[in-house]
């Protein structure tokens, strides 16, 4: 052991009771940091990526994403096979694996986890529908399952103690102990993606009844890990589930995976690690320092540490390379924009104005300034992570062009004079957040529009106040974005669908008959080249009408130490820790724990 490593080892021994400097640890342990608080671990209530990331190690769904294959494909998880459909595709039948057991927990007789059955899915889904539970995830099912909306209606005013989950629902049935059947009101082409979404994971009735409202703190799932301890806001420890169903590390992936060492563990039983310890670290400095100390295996790069980690070629600096750190870059399924309220009499009726503002927005500079270059300029709604992404959408108005912007603004002024009389008023743009970065973002927007002679007043509001303005249609312009839940473009395009206007998810209050007609079609059409062509048409309609200024798609820069194995970025899948591995000897040699 070198002197440096010895110092590390001694220091860490003083810092953490889990360290052992005499020999490598017996267990394979993953050390991580969570940069936001875990709100709760009841799948029904999970609506944030941090809680999903943790809870998906305890709970599983019918299907999961293949870990290595791209484009993203689904495979059975708790399902024994992929679903079968009736001829009209309105009845979906899914067989369930028979070798799955819930975690051992005091809620079961003798503390022994019982076998998973089809009824557990039905029960979990009814919990989402039950009004009193105020689930964030009702939107996944709403108006899609026969009888479920009616069931929700009957639960109005029913106290939790009086709620009877045995009520039959025509569209949700366990046709035998190990088969779930779903009857749809209309064709739902992304039903498999929906059933892969964590909130739809099965939960045992025994645990919900045993823990009551505290079930959120006592996850009892079927996943590869079980909760060992959790100090809210501080630390969460999970341990391997000894009764985890038989699952092996994939034997195949995409080109380059073998060379990248991602198939070394092919065929091995999952999970590959024994234990994972996560600390909640909310501030950038301690988050970064713990990573640089080797106390965590991997980390994102805080804005202020970017220049010390990444050089001008967007690669690792020599000091990071000598520490044995690797950089992994990948686009995220996100799109950000400055939205217009299309019901606003000024912005909503003046296309040249919206075109001028879109042309005046310097996307590249914005990405450099606020994300250290970690982004791609957005030209349309769909991010590069979906197969239907079109990088060359035909629009001259979604690029930075000040000359054209000035010309368009003149047209906009003329149109405004014609329609309303007088010059364009000062426009109002709401930026979510009151911290320094949010204020700077507002100033950046202001400067971009001032460059063509357009006055924009910036209002920095906290998130709830901004939501209030947007949802009550009283915002003229606002800055927002969307993270896709699954790779089906419908999950993004729903934001421009007319009937979804505020307080629904269409915050632009945009309405285009042709777009709505196409949307109605894609929501019931099975995947096909025709459907993909329709996505392109819909994107084109949106970029032609410009209800928003598309700004960026985020790109993630992720750092990991050499000892952290099998990491492959996956932008939709959660619960991927079962595939990860740690070279405990290498870590012990380098940092002594």
């Amino acid at each position, binding site marked *: 052991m070198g002197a440096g490593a010895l110092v590390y080892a001694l220091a860490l021994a003083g*810092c953490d009771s889990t360290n052992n400097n005499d020999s490598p640890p017996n267990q394979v342990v993953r050390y991580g940091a969570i940069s936001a608080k875990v709100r709760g671990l009841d799948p029904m209530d999970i609506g944030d990526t941090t809680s999903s990331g943790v809870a998906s190690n305890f709970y599983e769904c019918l299907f999961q994403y293949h870990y290595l294959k791209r484009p993203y494909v689904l495979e059975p998880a708790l399902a024994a096979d992929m679903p079968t459909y009736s001829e009209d595709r309105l009845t979906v039948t899914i067989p369930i694996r028979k070798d799955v057991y819930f975690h051992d927990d005091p809620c079961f007789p003798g503390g022994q986890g019982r076998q998973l059955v089809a009824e557990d899915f039905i029960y979990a889904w009814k919990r989402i529908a039950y009004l009193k539970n105020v689930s964030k995830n009702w939107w996944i099912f709403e108006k899609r399952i026969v009888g479920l909306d009616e069931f929700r209606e009957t639960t109005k005013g029913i106290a939790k103690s009086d709620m009877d989950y045995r009520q039959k629902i025509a569209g949700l049935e366990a046709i035998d102990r190990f088969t779930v059947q779903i009857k749809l009101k209309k064709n739902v082409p992304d039903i498999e993606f929906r059933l892969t979404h964590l909130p739809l994971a099965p939960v045992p009735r025994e645990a919900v009844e045993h823990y009551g409202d505290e079930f959120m703190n006592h996850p009892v799932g079927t996943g590869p890990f079980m909760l060992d301890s959790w100090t809210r806001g501080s630390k969460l420890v999970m341990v391997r589930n000894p009764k985890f169903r038989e699952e092996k590390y994939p034997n195949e992936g995409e080109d380059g995976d073998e060379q990248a060492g991602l198939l070394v563990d092919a065929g091995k039983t999952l999970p590959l690690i024994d234990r994972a310890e996560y600390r909640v670290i909310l501030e950038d400095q301690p988050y970064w*320092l*713990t990573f640089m100390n080797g106390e965590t295996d991997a980390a994102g790069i805080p804005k202020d540490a970017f220049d010390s980690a990444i050089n001008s070629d967007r690669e690792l600096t020599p000091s990071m390379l000598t520490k044995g750190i690797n950089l992994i870059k990948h686009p995220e399924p996100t799109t950000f924009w400055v939205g217009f309220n299309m019901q606003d009499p000024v912005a909503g009726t003046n296309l040249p104005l919206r075109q001028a503002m879109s042309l005046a927005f310097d996307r590249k500079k914005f990405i450099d300034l606020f994300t250290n270059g970690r982004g791609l300029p957005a030209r349309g709604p769909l991010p590069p992570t979906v197969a239907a992404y079109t990088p060359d959408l035909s629009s001259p108005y979604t690029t930075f062009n000040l000359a054209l912007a000035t010309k368009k603004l003149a047209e906009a002024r003329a149109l405004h004079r014609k329609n309303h009389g007088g010059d364009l008023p000062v426009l109002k743009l709401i930026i979510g957040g009151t911290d320094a970065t949010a204020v700077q973002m507002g100033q950046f927007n202001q400067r971009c529009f001032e460059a063509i002679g357009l006055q924009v007043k910036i209002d920095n509001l906290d998130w709830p106040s901004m939501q209030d303005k947007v949802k009550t249609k009283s915002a003229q312009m606002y800055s927002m974005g969307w993270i896709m839940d699954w790779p089906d473009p419908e999950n993004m395009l729903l934001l421009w669908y007319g009937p979804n206007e505020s307080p629904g998810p269409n915050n632009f209050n945009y309405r285009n008959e042709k777009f709505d007609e196409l949307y109605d079609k894609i929501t019931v059409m099975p995947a096909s080249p025709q459907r993909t062509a329709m996505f392109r048409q819909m994107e084109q309609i949106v970029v032609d009408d410009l209800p928003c200024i598309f700004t960026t798609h985020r790109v993630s820069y992720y750092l990991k130490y050499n000892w952290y194995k099998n990491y492959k970025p996956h932008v939709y899948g959660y619960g991927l820790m079962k595939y990860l591995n740690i070279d405990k000897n290498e870590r012990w040699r380098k940092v002594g724990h």
Partner: protein
Amino acid sequence: MWIYVVRRLLYTIPIVLGVLLITFLLFKLIPGDISAELAGKAASPETIAEIRAELDWDKPLLLNFQAARQRGPMAVFESQFFIHFKKSLTFNFGRSIRSKENIATMLRTRAGPSLSLTLPMFVIAMVSSLTVALLVAMLRGTMWDYSIVLICVLGMSVPYLAFILFGQYYFAYKLQWFPIIGYEPGLGVWRYVALPVLIGALAGLGADVRFYRTVMLDEMNADYVRTAYAKGVAMPRVLFVHVLKNAMIPVLTRVVLAIPFLFLGSLLLERFFGIPGLGDMTIQAINSRDFPIVSAMTFIISILFALGNLTTDVCYAIVDPRISLS
């Protein structure tokens, strides 16, 4: 004195009720409706309306005249305020709107970590600042006095955040004398709170020393001090018995009134050092409009503050025989 104490305790009731009402109105009247957020990212308008109804947010704010007309006069109290009022008075704080955690449990589990940080910080800061202030007052007009006052002013000019960033980087990361971040309940807690306690105590020292120095100097110029010296009383006895005792009124005011706020924790230290306390919880609740948490914290702090005030008055009477409570 007991009559005075009972009377002051009775005064506490309308104060706390007033605080409840003002907090409620402030929170409800500022813009910001989180029902759309609670309903989920792609929720329909109907779902949002259902959620509002489930949380009683569709009821009138203060009085429900419509319900009174339909169901009798008592139904006038079926309003958002009286539902909240009833819960608070029975110490049923309910659950966080955001995380659905039981607020009583949150308070119970987070008060310990907050106090494990703020209590030693408070004691260390108070003892050291009083001691330094006495010494500086004793050495007034010397180079020592000027130097310490200058250091205090410089310390006061440095932002609190700078102390934290430097302390964590240098003492925890570079020198590795302390863990960078973490918390462990029980006896192991000292390893994690030692650095934040020292940083917090040091950062507040400048203002405290200057305040106490002024108080001590006022007393040291008093006649009784000259008399004591004239009678041959030794300097330490003059300082620590005569001066300190007579300077206790402003000291008590500052110290006792600070005690209720120890319960609030320390936002920055808790966030930077990963201490799961009440400070960070309260600020996050305010930012995310988690009204039940904010209301519970305001309610408890207002009670503690009222009790703190009363304790201060009682202490005045104990320390200074010229003050009588009636």
